[in-house]
């Protein structure tokens, strides 16, 4: 049995539970980033409504929030609760999103950029929430304002004392309006910019949650808002320090640290944690393989590889070699994750081409060229023995298919299952295999984002290059399996073997009749 680290094993078990309850498409753990975006939308829309009734003056802020909460509880009160609870839910989904990438090891190598840009994004969200609590201007708002100011005062380049503003009656409407401006416009703009940077190196970015998940999340948020509406503390009073506060621990967890450490040390602690998190991709670093290379002699500029690349590493440009085609593709080696999906996208990767010669495709992986894959397939087909000859195709990031090898079974593993040209299955069936069993990462959770999705579409015939109709679908089985799904896969494989046996028996039974005719 191969070793899977306990954190990853635990996380995969949790994912399997959620797939059981929600199905792969709606599995919340596969959609944490998209769910966070969904909660931001709820926060944004509810915030717009609250803005209509909110008084941005120091004297009017608290009473306007009280009006919304109690007088107009059925609309603005619900909106306030949605605003708060969706903000809290966003923090949970962001933290789980980070934890998932960490547990599954998806934060190193080519993924460094998304991780590095994601950590400060969490800070943008937290500071946005902090100013939101500030604006209510209740006892909690005053507490947040006071301690935030102490943190700001502790910065070496700050010369005045901001905290002093919150003692006595020195605070002006103008300062309060500035905070309102920050919360309504300044910080959200920074957050949008940070999110744009975060997803910049990805293609086909989805920022909307799957419909079912969005409906379920909204209904449950609404139910919570009605069952436990968000309420304020007493109005802020500079002469009072409340003994007990109901902190929102998702956003305000740093402040109690200041009971134990001065503001300067609190900065050092929080910044140290942030920097360690940001440096994780390099502790230790992980090398990404050589980037894909384009062979213009075999590229017709169809752009399918650029369309399929999950990391936006392939661009289309005007032809440079004088060939009759309009375009060619170019790989940006800094963005290439060496997943090989482009190889599976290229129509020239068809193994039926250039039989007996070196197979060269339009775009290839230097460390595992398509010719080597065909050679490995030929070797596997030649070594298949027994009545039911089955080829198993898998990927390096899911269940290790080499563990499944036994007489009658030969396995090939690729960088990603999306690297496999659909025609390779046709090739295997046409050259002696009785069945092809395809695995790879769990549905909805491809390590390289779209490998298994593109492959399914190529098989369905909805994405080029398609699997030709002549490939007998009854002899092809797709069963996704993570590193910990060995027993499920063994069971499925045993059923597939029995199925192939049955097909072979039926074929055998048909042969004498045809011979007789």
């Amino acid at each position, binding site marked *: 049995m191969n070793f899977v680290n306990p954190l990853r094993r635990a996380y995969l078990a949790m994912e399997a539970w959620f797939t059981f309850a*929600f199905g792969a498409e709606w599995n919340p753990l596969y959609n944490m980033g998209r769910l966070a975006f969904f909660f931001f939308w709820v926060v944004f829309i509810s915030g717009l409504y609250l803005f209509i009734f909110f008084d941005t003056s120091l004297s009017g802020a608290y009473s306007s929030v009280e009006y919304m909460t109690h007088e107009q509880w059925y609309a603005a009160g619900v909106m306030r609760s949605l605003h708060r609870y969706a903000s809290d839910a966003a923090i949970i989904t962001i933290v789980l999103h980070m934890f998932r990438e960490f547990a599954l090891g998806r934060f190193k190598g080519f993924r460094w950029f998304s991780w590095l840009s994601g950590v400060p994004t969490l800070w943008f969200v937290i500071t946005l929430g902090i100013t939101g609590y500030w604006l209510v201007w209740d006892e909690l708002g005053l507490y947040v304002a006071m301690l935030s100011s102490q943190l700001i005062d502790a910065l070496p380049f700050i010369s005045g004392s901001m*905290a002093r503003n919150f003692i006595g009656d020195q605070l002006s409407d103008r300062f309060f309006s500035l905070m309102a401006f920050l919360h309504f416009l300044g910080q959200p703009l920074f957050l949008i910019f940070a999110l744009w940077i975060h997803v910049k190196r990805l293609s086909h970015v989805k920022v909307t949650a799957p419909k079912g998940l969005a409906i379920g999340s909204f209904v*449950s948020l609404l139910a919570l808002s009605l069952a436990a509406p*968000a309420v304020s503390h007493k109005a802020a009073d500079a002469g009072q*320090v409340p003994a007990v506060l109901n*902190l929102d621990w998702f956003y305000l967890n740093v402040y109690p640290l200041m009971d134990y450490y001065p503001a300067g040390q609190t900065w050092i602690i929080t910044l140290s944690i942030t920097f360690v998190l940001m440096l994780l991709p390099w502790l230790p670093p992980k090398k990404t393989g050589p980037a894909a290379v384009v062979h213009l002699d075999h590229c017709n500029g169809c752009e399918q590889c650029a369309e399929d690349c999950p990391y936006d590493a392939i661009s289309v440009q005007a032809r440079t070699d004088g060939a009759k085609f309009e375009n060619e593709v170019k790989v940006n080696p800094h963005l290439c994750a060496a997943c090989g999906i482009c190889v599976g996208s290229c129509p020239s990767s068809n193994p039926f081409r250039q039989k007996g010669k070196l197979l060269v495709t339009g775009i290839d992986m230097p460390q595992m060229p398509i010719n080597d894959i065909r050679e490995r397939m030929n070797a596997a087909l030649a070594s298949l023995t027994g009545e039911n000859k089955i080829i198993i195709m898998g990927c390096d990031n899911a269940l290790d298919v080499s563990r499944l090898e036994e007489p009658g079974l030969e396995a090939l593993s690729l960088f990603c299952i999306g690297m496999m040209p659909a025609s390779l299955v046709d090739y295997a069936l046409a050259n002696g295999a009785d069945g092809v069993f395809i695995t790879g990462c769990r549905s909805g959770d491809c390590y390289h984002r779209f490998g298994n999705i593109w492959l399914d579409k190529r098989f369905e015939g909805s994405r080029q290059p398609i699997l030709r109709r002549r490939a007998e679908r009854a002899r092809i089985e797709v069963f996704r399996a993570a590193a910990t799904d060995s027993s499920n896969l063994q069971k499925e494989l045993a059923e597939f073997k029995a199925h192939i046996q049955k097909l072979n028996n039926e074929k055998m039974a048909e042969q004498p009749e045809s011979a007789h005719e």
Partner: protein
Amino acid sequence: MNKVLRYGLQAFNYALFMGVVWYFSIYPPYHQLDEDQAVITLSFTHATKLREACRKKTQEELSKLAPNMRLQMDCPRERSPLRLELYLDDELLTNASAEPVGFHKDQSVNLFQRVKVKAGEHRLRVWMNDDVNVIGATYEHEQAVILKPEQQLLVDFNAGSGKFMLK
């Protein structure tokens, strides 16, 4: 899978998730003070005395300067650090010291400190030195105070009158 069971499991997961959202949005309550405590907040901005007084430059010093820079007086900008001690019923509560801000330490000292104390009747004494050339207090203040639970007492300083103010 049975649709009812599947939706039931989903509802359970949503409820669990929202339960976590609700709980940690207000619980556990944070106790920043004990029920019988009050807070004394020291907060003021004060321009402390200059470390060195102005002096007249010697002819030798002046001759080394360019003709357009020959100012007769040398006035160092650096100000003294501020030292402050706060006593409650003759017991030292806090011993604060702060440097003037600015690259040349030539601006005001900002002091902000909060101390939790037991509510009740007390005698408060503030001792402050804002001049390195003076040994001992440059300002001192003593006053009886009655602190209610959860009250915040502000200790401010008005440089103009040279007096501490308790609000």
